[in-house]
Every structure is written in structure tokens, then in C-alpha cells.
């Protein structure tokens, strides 16, 4: 119950679409969202294909909870092979698109092939049409949404790309409702490579659940006692900018391309500073919290900046001017680019310039030069051609790989692993490269009771967190609801009319992690790729709570070996056949 049981498959090359039955067994094994999307991609994609070719697929997947009254269940998973990393890539995006797609009658959409000219897909219940997008091509992400609202309906929901994705920049994202992004790994470029400017949807259908009145009463109790609590309400009162102070205090605030873990001017970019320019709050469909801080400063308005932008686009570039960071965020949003990767590549280019390796005319703290970069990358103009390569390829071209802050080609988020050693393992083993959304041991290590400067117990911690997130993102729920696995099981049980235990959901999480790993192994990834930049292993931090700290390589290797062993993977990081059989993957 609560699946539509239908998938929409669209061949963009021919413009033809067909509706097919959802694979019910896969829906049991992988639930939905991240897990189910990865399963479909794994089964359908040939190994070794070029991510920006017509052979790649883009899968939009809702979940079991989508469209219901379950709080924070409004997200959509987007799954493809990443052009930035060559790995599996799943991103989640907020807003209202996922629910609208389900009301239109589909659990998911599989986009195949490549449109012969710039196009957008319009789905209105059973009517599916590939339309000409020549007047949209070249438009900013937000501008595109406004045009679609004007052309179709004021309340149409859309996924759109900006000019960066059209130009196949591998740090381009997919946007919805102006400020929500499937941000990482170049998911936007895959859409751009398919000549697909937007997917717009209007749905009129309804979703039924068993014993709806009892279900609603149960959920209202859950919302009051488990969602709207002090554990979660920081999301509404502050949102992610709260992490600036926390990370400054714990010495893990990336500063000047991860050269330091504290930033002298952190108070200019923290939550209190952001509150002075906040003009509104916004949440996604069915969200009870509302993380979005609508901010206005100077000539820019933006929902944000989120912590990642404040850190990676702020302190990590030596920028303390909040108005400049807001403008940077606004530029990236309309051009359709991931602020984490853009911020990182700017910081890396600043350090290359500082060290005299390659002069990009960029200096830490130089606001004017910094604000020119997003436009240059998106247009693939001037230094933007080089910077659009991303940190990994830029280091391969000019040097500096020791301080190229990336894993598998994906740039670091805003948490210094020398002050959270488990986070180092989480970056190294994440299915899509350096990512904080697969496991976030920072909460236990930097903010919690665990010693951040030891590898003891960290392999199991990272594994447990990876399973938790894989299950949560398959349901699909927002990261910001810190609910227990047991509560997740209760919610599923209410909809499925059978008891789904915490253990069963943990097993789903493990299955999803292993399948994602198997995808990457099939693409040639192994232990050699599960590593961190030399800076983390060799350079000591010089200030704050992490002063004198580095993560010794032998300690990291010990943690990684333990991780493989606990997972039932071989010494090269390949899942053993017995493990894959145990999980029902083969």
C-alpha cells in the first residue's frame, strides 16, 4: 500500500513514453528513493558507459511515504552515474515535486536517451509530452521556473537546470522551487547532456492508506512528540548556519582550503549574523520543521546560505563578507551549480595562486575576484574553463594534489576530518565521494562524547550511520528529522499492514550500501580510491581545538581495514560473494 505501482519510462530520443509496473519484490527489498533507484540503475546500466552520453539514465524516484501526511517526507531521489566521479550518484531534492509526481500516478520516472533538441518534459497525470524548450535554453534555473509557471500553471512543480548544466559543467545541479537542489556530483550535467531543460508535473490523483483516520491520529502524535521537539527544532530556529559556531568551537570549520580549522571572522558568517538578514522561513512539502532561511542582503535574495555555503564558500575562501556569500549563493543558484564544489575549486585555485603553482588571479578573501568565478565556470569562459574541471582534474593538470580536497572527484563538504577521524572514513568510503550525507560521525565525535582523535570504534560507527542514512533516504525522509530506526519501522508498519522491525530496516540499509558499492566495483573502483588527500595525513592544524592534529595514515589504514572486515568485504574493498548472497543482491 502507498505505492502507485507505476513507473513512467521516457525515451527522450524518440519522445515516446510508456507506463510499466513497479517491480514489487525490489520495492520490498529496497523500499524506494535512494535504494530502489540504485537497484533500477544497477540492473539497467551497462558498466563503463560515459556518464554524459545518451546511454546514461536519469531516474527520479519517490518513496513509500511520498504524498502522505508523514512529516518531512517530501523529498525526491535522483539517481544516475556521476560525470564528476564515475560512481553511482544519488541526490535528494526537496520542494513539492515528489508529491506532485505521485499524485500524477507514478512512483518514479526513468529518463533514457537524448532529446534531439532542447526540450522539456511535461507530465499531467497520464498525459506525457516532450515539448520544445528553445525559449528556455540559456535561461537561469529560477528564470526557467518562472517561465514554466507562466506557460503551464502557477502551481506547476518543476525540476530545472541552469546554463552550467547546459554547458556540461560537472558541478552543475538540478533545481526546484528556486532554492532546492539535487546538488552534488554533476547530476545537472546529465540532464543537460540529454538536452532536457526541465521536467514539469501536475498531478490530480489521491493517495489512499489503510485506516486513514487512525493513521492521521497516530501521525499527529508522532509529529508532536517526535518531530516538533528540541532535538529537531533547531532546524527551524536557526537551520544549518548553527553549525558555524559549533565547528569553530571544535576546530573543524574549513578555512582557506582546509589549511586551518578555525576562522577569525566566524561571527560575521554565523547564525546570529544570518538572522539579521532573514526575511522569511520556508519548508518543503509535508515538512513540519522548515529549515529554509529566506535572506536578503544588498542586491541578492536567497534561501540560505546553508552551512555548507557559509563554510566552503565563506571561511574556506577566506571570505567573511556575508553579503558577498549571499550573492555568491544567489549566483550559483540561478546558474545551477553546487556551492560546495564551486567554493572548493575557488579555494583550491586561491591556494595554487598563493603557492605560485598557477596564477588564477584569485586570493583568499578577495571578494571581487571570488564573485566573478561562478559566471565564468557556468559560461565556460576564461579561468572558468579550468575551474569547471573540479578540484581533482585541476590538480591533475597543474599540480597540488596533496591539498586537492576531494575523494573520487567529489569535493569536501564543510567538516575537517582531522578533528573527526570517523568523518575521514565516512568521506573515504561514501558511495559518491566526499560526502557528509552518507554518514555524519561529526555529531558523535566533535559534538558528542566520542574521542574525535582515535580510530577505535569508528569503523562500526560509520557502518551503523551509513545503514541508518541508506534506509532513511530510501523511505524517503529528510535528513533533518532525527527519528529512530524504530520509529521508521513503526511508520512503515502503519502503511504496509505488517510489522517492519528496526532490524529489517537496518538490513535494507546494508543491502543498499552493498549494492551501491557493487556498482562502483563494477566501474573499477577499489581500495585505492578509498582514501583522503595527503594534507589530512601529513599536515597538522594550527589553531583552536584541533591544534596539532592530523590523521596518521597508518591509523586511517587500520580503520579502513577494520571497516572492510566488519562489512564482509575483501582487503581490496570488494564485497565478498557470501555477503552479497546473504543480502540477496546476487
Amino acid at each position: 500500500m502507498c505505492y502507485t505501482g507505476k513507473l513512467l519510462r521516457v525515451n527522450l530520443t524518440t519522445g515516446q513514453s510508456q507506463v510499466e509496473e513497479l517491480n514489487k519484490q525490489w520495492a520490498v527489498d529496497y523500499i524506494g528513493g535512494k535504494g530502489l533507484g540504485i537497484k533500477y540503475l544497477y540492473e539497467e546500466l551497462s558498466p563503463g558507459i560515459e556518464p554524459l552520453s545518451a546511454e546514461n539514465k536519469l531516474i527520479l524516484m519517490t518513496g513509500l511515504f511520498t504524498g502522505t501526511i508523514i512529516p518531512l517526507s517530501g523529498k525526491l531521489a535522483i539517481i544516475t552515474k556521476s560525470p564528476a566521479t564515475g560512481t553511482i550518484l544519488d541526490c535528494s531534492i526537496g520542494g513539492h515535486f515528489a508529491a506532485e509526481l505521485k499524485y500524477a500516478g507514478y512512483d518514479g520516472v526513468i529518463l533514457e536517451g537524448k532529446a534531439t533538441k532542447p526540450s522539456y518534459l511535461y507530465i499531467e497525470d497520464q498525459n506525457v509530452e516532450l515539448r520544445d524548450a528553445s525559449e528556455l535554453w540559456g535561461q537561469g534555473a529560477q528564470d526557467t521556473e518562472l517561465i514554466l509557471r507562466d506557460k503551464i500553471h502557477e502551481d506547476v512543480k518543476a525540476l530545472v537546470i541552469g546554463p552550467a548544466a547546459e554547458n556540461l559543467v560537472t558541478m552543475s545541479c538540478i533545481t526546484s522551487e528556486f532554492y532546492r537542489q539535487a546538488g552534488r556530483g554533476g547530476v545537472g550535467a546529465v540532464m543537460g547532456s540529454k538536452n532536457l531543460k526541465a521536467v514539469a508535473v501536475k498531478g490530480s490523483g489521491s493517495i489512499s492508506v489503510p485506516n486513514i483516520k487512525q493513521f492521521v491520529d497516530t501521525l499527529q502524535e508522532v509529529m508532536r512528540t517526535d518531530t516538533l521537539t528540541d532535538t529537531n527544532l533547531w532546524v527551524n530556529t536557526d537551520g544549518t548556519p548553527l553549525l558555524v559556531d559549533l565547528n569553530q568551537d571544535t576546530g573543524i570549520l574549513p578555512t582557506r582550503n582546509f589549511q586551518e580549522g578555525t576562522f577569525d571572522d566566524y561571527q560575521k558568517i554565523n547564525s546570529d549574523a544570518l538572522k539579521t538578514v532573514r526575511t522569511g522561513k520556508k519548508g518543503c512539502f509535508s515538512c513540519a520543521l522548515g529549515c529554509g532561511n529566506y535572506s536578503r542582503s544588498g542586491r541578492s535574495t536567497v534561501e540560505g546560505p546553508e552551512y555548507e555555503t557559509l563554510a566552503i564558500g565563506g571561511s574556506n575562501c577566506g571570505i567573511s563578507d556575508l553579503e558577498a556569500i549571499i550573492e555568491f549563493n544567489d549566483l550559483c543558484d540561478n546558474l545551477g551549480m553546487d556551492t560546495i564544489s564551486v567554493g572548493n575549486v575557488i579555494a583550491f585555485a586561491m591556494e595554487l595562486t598563493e603557492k605560485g603553482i598557477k596564477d588564477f588571479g584569485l586570493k583568499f578573501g578577495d571578494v571581487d575576484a571570488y564573485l566573478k568565478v561562478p559566471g565564468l565556470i557556468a559560461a565556460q569562459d576564461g579561468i572558468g574553463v579550468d575551474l569547471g574541471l573540479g578540484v581533482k582534474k585541476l590538480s591533475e593538470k597543474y599540480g597540488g594534489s596533496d591539498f586537492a580536497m576531494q575523494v573520487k572527484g567529489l569535493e569536501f563538504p564543510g567538516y575537517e576530518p582531522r578533528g573527526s577521524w570517523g568523518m575521514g572514513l565516512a568521506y573515504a568510503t561514501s558511495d559518491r565521494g566526499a560526502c557528509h550525507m552518507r554518514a555524519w560521525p561529526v555529531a558523535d565525535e566533535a559534538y558528542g562524547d566520542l574521542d574525535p582523535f582515535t580510530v577505535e570504534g569508528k569503523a562500526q560507527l560509520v557502518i551503523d550511520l551509513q545503514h541508518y542514512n541508506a534506509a532513511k533516504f530510501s523511505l524517503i525522509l529528510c535528513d533533518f528529522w532525527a527519528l529512530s530506526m524504530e520509529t521508521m519501522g513503526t511508520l512503515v508498519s502503519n502503511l504496509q499492514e505488517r510489522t517492519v522491525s528496526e532490524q529489517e530496516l537496518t538490513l535494507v540499509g546494508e543491502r543498499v550500501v552493498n549494492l551501491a558499492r557493487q556498482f562502483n566495483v563494477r566501474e573499477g573502483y577499489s581500495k585505492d580510491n578509498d582514501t583522503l588527500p595527503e594534507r589530512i595525513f601529513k599536515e597538522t592544524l594550527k589553531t583552536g581545538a584541533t591544534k596539532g592534529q592530523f590523521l596518521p595514515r597508518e591509523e586511517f589504514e587500520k580503520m579502513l581495514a577494520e571497516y572492510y572486515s566488519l562489512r564482509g568485504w575483501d582487503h581490496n574493498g570488494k564485497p565478498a560473494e557470501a555477503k552479497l548472497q546473504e543480502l540477496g543482491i546476487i
Partner: protein
Amino acid sequence: MALKLIEELCIGCRLCQLACSAAKEEVFNPELARLKVISTYTKTGLNYTTSLCSMCLICVGICPTEAITHQDGHLVYDQDKCTNCGSCITECPEKVITSREQGIALCDFCGGSPACVEWCPHHALINQEVN
């Protein structure tokens, strides 16, 4: 009593519409709700589109068959008396009343304790006294 939205507290989650459609239609479908609260971004700011029963009672006055009456502070709809003339739908200034296969759907405040108000997570939607 009448519904009122305090925009600065609203996060645009549509839980109110989901609660309404569940209470009145026994499905989840925001479009079937007897209220609308939508917030969208534009280039100039965050805009709210609302459709809330203000208890103006125009529908009560215009209904030719007394299918809509005002009792105990809320509207009461009697489908047996409704002739599907559509007058209430046309005249409702808030566009809250909509047609159904049989008759109409209106906001009756759930008999006094509106589900939408109970579900609003940040008390942006309130039930306030009107003259």
C-alpha cells in the same frame, strides 16, 4: 470563528491541506482540501496564496434551498437539499467552495475543531473570533 493565516509563521508545508483532505475525503490530496495555503518564491520575495473560509456567510444567504446553513458557529451543508445550482461556488469570495460529483464541498470547520488548525506545526493557521 474563522480561519486566519499568520504569514510570517507559515512555512508552506501543506500539512493543513493534507489534514483536511484526510478528514473530509479520506485520502491524501491537497487539491481536494477545503482550504489552500501555498507559499512560492518569486524574484521579488516569498508570496502566499490562500483560500480560507472567512465566515462571510454569503453562501448561506445566496443558497436558494437552504442547503447551507449557519449553526453553532460553523457552516452545515445538507446535500439532500442541494440542487447543484452552483451559486455558492460562483459567489464564494475566497474560492473555498468547490464542486463534487454530487453537490459541493465546503469548509465546516470540522464541526468546531478544524483538522487544518490542529495540524499546523507552527500555529500559523488559527481559528479566530469574527463579528
